[in-house]
């Protein structure tokens, strides 16, 4: 049998010695997954196979790529539970009895989920990749199962070859790398989930960096905690890491809502966001109803105000009123006085929002930001202190996104009508998505609309959240690709897997992710579910992200291998060119 395997392996271009045999298929089904009995003699141990790792199955005509979804201790006879070898008095010699019984009467079993197949006679180079397809068959009984090799991983995950974006290494294979086609990723909405401190911010930052590097799509980042633009914090290693602006100074534009905070952090943004009062619509108030603690009636009063004062002028005119004038207005409009007073009181607090101006104009306005995006610049909006104010965050991101979306819809429709170019694919990045996308308000916010209409208008979302269960299930089910770090809550895990194929099997994998630096990736952008250890966000990543500038142009991106002192000197020289 081993000899046959060797022949099959050799025919397939694999050295049989390079393939670590784990066991054979002994049962299962396509829907439930396959049962693989671990070999008793080849020293394949359950301890060497982690849930989420890759295996290949050598069928008669095809090779199958599968993920380990569960591990089980099995015994031929149930009495082993009651009379384990060492529990019986006097185990003959140095664990011999246990050694013999392990792997024979008592053995390990893997549950694996076959996802992809490739014909047996493909080469092991990139050509195999084009031929992999979703598994619609299963191998026969006793098909040998091997631990996947780097070649296998490449065949499945490197559809575009080795220049695709390297996200990290698969479970238990530090040397191998999982590659993502970011172009594909950006065509549908993406969700990045994970409990606090599991590394989702790093994962998201890497994806964003990849998007900027590849340049197929532009992104608009609503940077709640100011950790994507200039630099971010690595709390585990107590160090600063480079943000998008540092990595791609020529392609990323940063805006701030809170100039003071930027100044304190020593960051010079490219612009300051100015939102005009005239840009705020009653719909924005509806979205904020919960956050502002407004009753339904009070929120609806905004529509009356708009009718009364006219679109564009209503908010500023309303906020200019004194308490007595509000009473008169309520009478005049015939609306509930208490409701109007509440609305006035809550909205008056917005006077402290430094980013609100009489009218939005200049580079920091919605129009200015749209222009940057249309030119292909990626935009990061740092919220500074307003990142801690949910109302401000929701207001600004909803309002800007609505404006941008309107523009994209218009451009797309013009392009479809043969006038003008297609708008660039745009990825809108939002954190704390459950604040916009709860079942109650998902239908009202622009984000709900974007998630639902998919990529019709070339706009997709990248949502980053730690409470996916708080997000409208319809929105969740529309996410093309999901990347999930460890989650603690059952409801969150269920929400992440909602609508996914093989959700049942993936549940076990998701529940056992390390609390740091591991993510389950599945959906549109990957051919099969995979557990990834994201690569380190460090100098080597920076170097890979570096954009090759033509000779003679200023090197604005950090050179590889420079020391801190050298970097500082270079940055000083860049800022203040020597005469």
């Amino acid at each position, binding site marked *: 049998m081993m000899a046959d395997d060797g022949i099959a392996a050799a025919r397939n271009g694999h050295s049989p010695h390079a393939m670590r045999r784990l066991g054979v298929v002994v049962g299962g089904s396509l829907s439930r997954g396959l049962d693989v009995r671990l070999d008793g003699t080849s020293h394949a141990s359950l301890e060497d196979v982690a849930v989420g790792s890759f295996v290949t199955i050598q069928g008669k005509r095809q090779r199958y790529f599968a993920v380990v979804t569960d591990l089980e201790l099995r015994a*031929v*006879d149930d009495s082993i539970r009651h*009379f384990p070898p060492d529990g*019986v008095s006097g185990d003959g010699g140095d664990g011999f*009895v246990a050694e*013999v019984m392990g*792997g024979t*009467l008592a053995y390990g079993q893997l549950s694996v989920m076959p996802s992809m197949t490739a014909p047996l006679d493909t080469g092991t180079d990139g050509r195999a990749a084009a031929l992999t397809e979703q598994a619609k068959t299963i191998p026969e009984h006793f098909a040998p199962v091997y631990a996947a090799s780097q070649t296998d991983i490449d065949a499945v995950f490197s559809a575009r070859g080795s220049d695709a974006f390297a996200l990290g290494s698969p479970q238990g294979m530090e040397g191998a790398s999982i590659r993502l086609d970011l172009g594909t990723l950006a065509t549908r909405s993406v969700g990045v989930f994970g409990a606090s401190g599991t590394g989702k911010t790093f994962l998201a930052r890497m994806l964003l960096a990849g998007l900027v590097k590849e340049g197929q799509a532009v992104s608009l980042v609503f940077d709640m905690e100011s950790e994507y633009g200039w630099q971010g914090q690595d709390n585990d290693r107590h160090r600063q890491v480079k943000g998008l602006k540092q990595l791609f100074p020529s392609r990323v534009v940063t805006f701030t809502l809170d100039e003071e905070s930027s100044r304190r952090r020593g960051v010079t943004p490219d612009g300051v966001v100015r939102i005009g009062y005239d840009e705020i619509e009653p719909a924005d108030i509806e979205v904020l109803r919960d956050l502002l603690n407004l009753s339904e009636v009070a929120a609806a009063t905004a529509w009356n105000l708009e009718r009364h004062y006219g679109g564009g002028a209503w908010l500023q005119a309303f906020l200019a009123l004194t308490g007595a004038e509000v009473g008169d207005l309520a009478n005049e409009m015939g609306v509930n006085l208490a409701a109007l007073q509440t609305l006035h009181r809550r909205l008056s607090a917005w006077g402290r929002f430094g980013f609100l101006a009489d009218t939005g104009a200049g580079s920091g306005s919605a129009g200015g930001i749209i222009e940057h995006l249309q030119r292909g610049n990626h935009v990061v909006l740092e919220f500074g202190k307003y990142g801690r104010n949910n109302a401000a965050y929701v207001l600004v991101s909803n309002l800007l996104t609505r404006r941008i979306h309107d523009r994209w819809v218009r451009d797309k429709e013009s392009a479809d009508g043969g006038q003008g170019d297609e708008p660039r694919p745009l990825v809108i990045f939002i954190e704390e998505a459950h604040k916009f996308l709860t079942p109650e308000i998902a239908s009202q916010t622009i984000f709900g609309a974007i998630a639902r209409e998919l990529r019709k208008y070339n706009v997709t979302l990248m949502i980053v959240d730690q409470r996916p269960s708080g997000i409208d299930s319809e929105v969740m089910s529309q996410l093309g690709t999901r990347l999930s770090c460890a989650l603690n809550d059952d409801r969150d895990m269920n929400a992440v897997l909602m609508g996914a194929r093989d959700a049942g099997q993936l549940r076990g994998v998701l529940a056992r992710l390390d609390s740091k630096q591991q993510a389950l990736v599945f959906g549109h952008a990957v051919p099969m579910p995979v557990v990834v250890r994201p690569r380190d966000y460090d100098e080597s990543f920076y170097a890979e992200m570096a954009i090759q500038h033509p000779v003679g142009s200023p090197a604005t991106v950090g050179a590889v291998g420079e020391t801190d002192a050298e970097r500082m000197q270079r940055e000083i020289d860049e800022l203040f060119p020597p005469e």
Partner: protein
Amino acid sequence: MMDTMAGQRVGEVMVSHTERIEAQCYELLSAPPLGSLLRVGSPPVYAVVREVWNEPLDPTRPLAPRGLSLETEEEIYVTNPQLGAMLTTRFAATIVGYRDGTLMRPGLPETPPNLHAFVFVCDGDETSEFSRELGWLRILLADRSPAADSALARFLRQSCAGAVDRREFLTRAGRTLAAELAGEPLRLQSVLREMVR
């Protein structure tokens, strides 16, 4: 005992079946030890000793105690020299293989050994050569008695003495046993323990 008897002719076949033989020793109390491999007749048939017993030669003349006034057991035989001719030692062995040309094959021969076929105790080399293939394990296990299990364990112990890698042989044999005794883990454990004792 094994070493001293290795290669020796110890008796002749008195009863012969496809699966087993019964033989009588040439000398009283000089049976091959339980679990030793025998070569019987020609062409040779191989069998493993599974039971040894001593009894009067004539079943119609039961024994009576003779040592009431004597100090030691030996004195009984010294004072009754006729006993050597009246008593006999017999042994039963399970057939586990045969020689087919130059090959030793595990399994049962087409015909059982002849009556009066000579019975030899195999030496270490022959034992190791025969036991390299483990196809005979099943046959020994089919004889479900404590003596048979004990004979099996001892035979495996002797076999491994001549194996190149003793531990490898024991583990391989143990795993084969485990597959055969999958439904009887306790019996398996007792054989395994006796094997490495």
